């Protein structure tokens, strides 16, 4: 286990160096949710029944979760890029713990996300979002968000090692953009037709978003929702547990085994 900790830290260091060497990329990635908050918040916000400021408060947790779900894409892209460039194979010929490389990648991604969330939340505060619950609940909300990011990145790492294609990762970017559209991240699901509402509420993004709204005190849990949304914190934790239980072993095994 100490081997994993040591190697994992070294690999985490590598990912952070990449960010330091290439800050423009990270800054650009972080501007995306901010512009979406402004566009959705003011453009859609004007057309919805909900008052604008209230909608922007509703939107902040949704965008946080939608951005976290992008971990699938970034995780996949980086893993595929490493395979493609031969970095993965160089590391695999070293006496390095098999799990260290994906663990380091996922941990670094969570750290970068945590830092990137700060400017987004500052813009959120500027447009009317507030932490309306207790500080402890707010911390729990952030913890849940980062746990979800960690789980999504693992799913991405597995897909990246499986497909070994940076192009496929790019294509998946469009799919992860669609995913929050079929959830309660941007709109309330109460008025959706029954079957569509069920699908949207079983979307992991919905449980996470509802949990964040509840913990930040931004919006109450909707009435008559499907189980993961009706019990948002438990639902969110369950989704994260399922994702991790599936993708951590798959990712590590795929990394250890290589392509053969």
């Amino acid at each position: 286990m100490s081997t994993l900790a040591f190697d994992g830290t070294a690999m985490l260091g590598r990912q952070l160096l990449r960010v330091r060497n290439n800050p423009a990329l990270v800054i650009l990635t972080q501007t995306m949710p901010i512009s979406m908050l402004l566009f959705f918040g003011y453009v859609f916000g004007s057309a919805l029944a909900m008052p604008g400021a209230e909608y922007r408060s509703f939107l902040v947790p949704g965008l946080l979760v939608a951005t976290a779900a992008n971990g699938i894409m970034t995780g996949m892209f980086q893993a595929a890029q490493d395979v493609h460039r031969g970095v993965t194979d160089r590391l695999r010929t070293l006496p390095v713990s098999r799990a260290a490389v994906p663990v380091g990648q996922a941990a670094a991604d969570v750290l970068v996300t945590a830092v990137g969330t700060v400017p987004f939340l500052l813009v959120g505060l500027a447009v009317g979002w507030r932490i309306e619950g207790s500080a402890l609940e707010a911390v729990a909300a952030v913890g849940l968000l980062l746990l979800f990011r960690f789980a999504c990145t693992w799913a991405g790492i597995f897909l990246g090692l499986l497909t070994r294609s940076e192009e496929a990762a790019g294509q998946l970017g469009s799919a992860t953009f669609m995913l929050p559209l079929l959830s309660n991240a941007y709109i309330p699901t109460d008025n959706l037709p029954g079957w569509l509402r069920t699908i949207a509420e079983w979307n992991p993004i919905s449980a996470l978003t509802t949990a964040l709204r509840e913990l930040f005190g931004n919006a109450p849990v909707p009435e008559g929702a499907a189980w993961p949304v009706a019990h948002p914190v438990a639902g969110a934790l369950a989704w994260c547990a399922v994702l991790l239980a599936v993708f951590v072993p798959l990712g590590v095994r795929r990394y250890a085994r290589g392509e053969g």
Partner: protein
Amino acid sequence: MTTTYAVLSEGLEKRFGEVRALRGLDLAVPRGTVCGVLGPNGAGKTTAVRLLTTLLRPDAGSARVAGHDLVREAAAVRRAIGVTGQYASVDGDLTGRQNLRLFARLHRMRAPNERAAELLERFGLTEAADRPASTYSGGMRRRLDLAASLVRRPEILFLDEPTTGLDPASRGAIWDAVRELKQDGTTVLLTTQYLEEADQLADDIALVDRGLVAHTGSPAQFKAVIGTYVEVVVADPEVLVEAAGVLDRLTGGQPTFDHERGAVGAVTRDTTLTLPRLVRELDAAGVPLLDASIEPPTLDDVFLRLTAEQEQEVAA
């Protein structure tokens, strides 16, 4: 555990779908020697290296690398080897120095910074040390790759086509590094498409064809199989016959003429024939020369000859 062989493989097989990349590779590399695995594209050289460096698992057969079983003791194998190939590369987003420091750290070296600086100096990369590796030229990149596989001195170094696509100066730098490593007692297994490279560096050559070792021997033995091509170009077409007579006497080969260029050539298996001697003999026979050359055989020559011989054996 000490053994005579750094690499010893028996019947290694690897299949990719329908393609049988290796069909039973037997390879024996004595400790402290340089083994050249020679073969054209698609012969299975890279697959062989990927298997022997634990990047792929064999479908059948077994191998011991540095005395450790390739499959059961993969971790011990990884501690003993260094690998450089087109697929095992450094991180282009990191600088040369950051890359080497990372590998030194992963090797649990006490002073990763010092080790990185030392290797950068040795491979002439000190000036470029703090630039991202993605900005390096092909030759610099290959030197950095090589440095990365030497961070902690390996017992066995695997080099997969280390000079393919490099300019002559960079190729020379890689060759010098291999010679130094051999002097330090490192075993080197290198794959190459160039007979000249194997001739320059290897103690033994294993010719690989369609997933099998088709032939093994020293570089001199390989060259003797095919012989050396001697050619002279004369100033006056009238003396072509005299030149052919001299060639016939020196080489014992059947002279062939190229009247348009005023050239005559012959194949010899006599490795002691030198260019000065050839010129002296022709001079003594009164043949005015424009040009003379002794060309070592190319891989194509050797390959065609050896595989043709094998096919004949099979037919017989």
